[in-house]
């Protein structure tokens, strides 16, 4: 009983030391609390992958009422935005090269004539492929437009064919807002930064300045030392989660359909693995510089493989199993499921278990390494 009390006491002391060290440096406190909020706001507004208003130049060489009607219809659903008009198709090409516009629609001379004669009319649409997502959406929209207008089709075919049309129905995020989808990923990245980077560099600093040995001669055990060093950042991390969810809801209308318990459990399990990662990196680096680079060497691939920015289903098959080893993947899935779809623990059992296994595993390995190094 008494030893347990002592452990708790020394844990509190380490927490106090770590807190006073952190809070003493105002700049540190502001980066811990203000930076995530700032990032969320900028991120939230910046992330708009919804492709619309693609700047488009019009080259109407026909200049008839019919061709004008066509170009106006092209811009009707706001996927494309009329940026300007040019006379020559060369000028349209130049505009594409300079990068001011991302698409061009060229209506050749004789368009109206061919329509009137029910010849297959010709229209050309050129799309800048440097941004593939935008190009994909643009070419889908353009081909649908042309298909609907029967351009490039043999007009005699049209009437004889029965068409299966598709009635799309979008669930959970009817307006297809990207910010809503991205928020969980932003959250996961920020937590990784607050916990892993700071733990790794903080421990490396203690080693650099030799204070680790000093603490070692006190009766504090290594595990208690680690726990005490991590706890303040777990608290900062959870405060950040709350702040970001609140702001996300207020500013970006990110829904909160699931239960708070799921989010709390998921965040807690996730922090286990990020802290473990931080400690692990600290045990393999001998300077803060190495700890910093090592953490980024982990954070960046984790971000890419988590499915936070690009869908996992688009990755090659051999790579997909590796993403199961990335804690961030599971956390992002939990947060998305809970916030957007109202999933409960049962729905997310697989992700929770994976996160728990990874967290305990990483933490156990790194604490063992840390102990061995100090011994």
């Amino acid at each position, binding site marked *: 009983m008494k030893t347990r009390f002592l452990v708790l006491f020394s844990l509190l002391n380490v927490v106090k030391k770590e807190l006073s060290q952190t809070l003493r440096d105002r700049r*540190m406190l502001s980066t811990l609390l203000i930076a995530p909020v700032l990032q969320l706001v900028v991120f939230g507004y910046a992330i*708009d992958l919804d492709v619309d208003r693609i700047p488009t130049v019009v080259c109407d060489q026909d200049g008839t009422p019919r061709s004008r009607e066509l170009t106006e219809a092209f811009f009707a659903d706001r996927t494309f935005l009329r940026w300007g008009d040019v006379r020559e198709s060369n000028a349209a090409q130049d505009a594409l090269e300079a990068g001011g516009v991302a698409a061009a629609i060229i209506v050749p001379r004789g368009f109206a004539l061919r329509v009137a004669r029910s010849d297959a009319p010709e229209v050309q649409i050129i799309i800048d492929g440097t941004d593939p997502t935008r190009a994909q959406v643009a070419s889908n929209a353009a081909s*649908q437009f042309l298909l609907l207008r029967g351009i490039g089709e043999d007009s005699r075919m049209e009437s004889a064919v*029965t068409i299966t049309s598709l009635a799309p129905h979008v*669930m959970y995020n009817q307006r297809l807002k990207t910010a809503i989808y991205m928020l969980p990923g932003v959250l996961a990245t920020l937590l990784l930064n607050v916990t892993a980077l700071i733990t790794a560099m903080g421990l490396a600093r203690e080693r650099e300045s030799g204070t680790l040995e000093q603490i070692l001669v006190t009766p504090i055990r290594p595990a208690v030392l680690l726990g005490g060093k991590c706890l303040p950042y777990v608290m900062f991390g959870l405060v950040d989660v709350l702040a970001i969810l609140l702001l996300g809801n207020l500013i970006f209308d990110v829904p909160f359909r699931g239960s708070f318990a799921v989010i709390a459990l998921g965040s807690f399990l996730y922090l286990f693995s990020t802290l473990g990662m931080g400690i692990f990196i600290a045990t393999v680096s001998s300077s803060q510089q190495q700890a910093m680079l090592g953490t980024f060497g982990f954070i960046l691939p984790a971000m890419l493989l988590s499915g936070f920015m690009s869908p996992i*289903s688009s990755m090659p098959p051999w790579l997909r199993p590796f993403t199961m080893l990335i804690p961030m993947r599971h956390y992002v899935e939990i947060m998305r499921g809970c916030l957007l779809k109202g999933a409960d623990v049962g729905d997310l059992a697989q992700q929770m278990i994976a996160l728990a296994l990874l967290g305990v595993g990483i933490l156990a390995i790194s604490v063992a390494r840390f102990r061995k190094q100090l011994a």
Partner: protein
Amino acid sequence: MRRFLRRTTAVAHKEVLHIIRDSRAVYLALGLPVVMLMLFGYGISQDVDHVPLAVADLDRTPASRHLGEALVAGGDFVREADLASPDDAEAAFRSGRVKAVLVVPRGYGRELARGVSTRAQLLVDGSDGTTAAIAMGDAAGILQAASLGRSAVASLSQGPRIRVRFNPAMRSTYNMVSGVIVLILAMVASLLASLTIAREWERGSMEQLFATPVGRVEILLGKLVPYAGLGFVQTLLVITLGSYMFDVPIRGSLVTLFGASLLFLLAMLGTGLLASVIAKSQLVAVQFAMLLSYMPVAMLSGFMFPIENMPGWLQAISMAVPGRYYLTALRGVLLKGNDLAVVAGDLVALAVFSVALLSLAVWRFRRRLA
């Protein structure tokens, strides 16, 4: 002038020794871009394909089966599950197993046989807006093409009337490689530079440096040069690997390319030094550098998120992000073969930023000492 050069070289020499002694950091700094490039090149793809699909076939006729098969034939969709009823869609979405559900209504085959136009329904998990939008477009195109009796692939995007320029296959790799170069340079240059001055403060060796006749400008410049060299090696590495492994074309001139890279490097090193001068501890300096250089470059340069979609005030802020100009210049030179005249504006902007940031760092450095 000669003294100035000698002192700067001395500081640079000292910094090079620091870098060499911490050789693991160098390996990390050079290995990280390669890993990123591999991941972006082989793994990460913004192209939406293999969308996991479930089929709820209520009709169970050859025609309805054909419809389901047509949808997965092109590789845009992968059939992950079959559902007995559309009511199961909700659960499948919630666990994240599928992202789209095709519902073929009862009587579909009969109506098709009678020559009536029919309707199938596609439920889409809209939480990932981009994937959902592209998947819906793809599905509509496939079904239209299938019912017009033509091959789905031909009609989809590369119909004869629609031409995609500069990157005809719409491969995201091209975009990625230029993005990775910008991101990696921004990150490694600014983060590494942010540690340099702060380290001297932390270890107390700054006082020793001040006791020597070396001035502030010489210290900052001397610290900057080795990292500029390291960054340049990274640029070379990423561009070489990108063009060899992923066939990223280099259509413009190499001189323009490296000129732009050097200017961008200086701007990022300036940001890092500024963070270092303000922070005084390595941990805080890294956070500052991330906030000042890496985050803006990642979010506002137009690499991942198109600038024209941002609200006006954010577009205005993005004008102050050097990465934006570098990315435009880089994409222009690599993919479009733009020459110096086209990218001159971007280069001037980069030069202004690097001079401004470096002078700001020197100025703050002086104030700290007084």
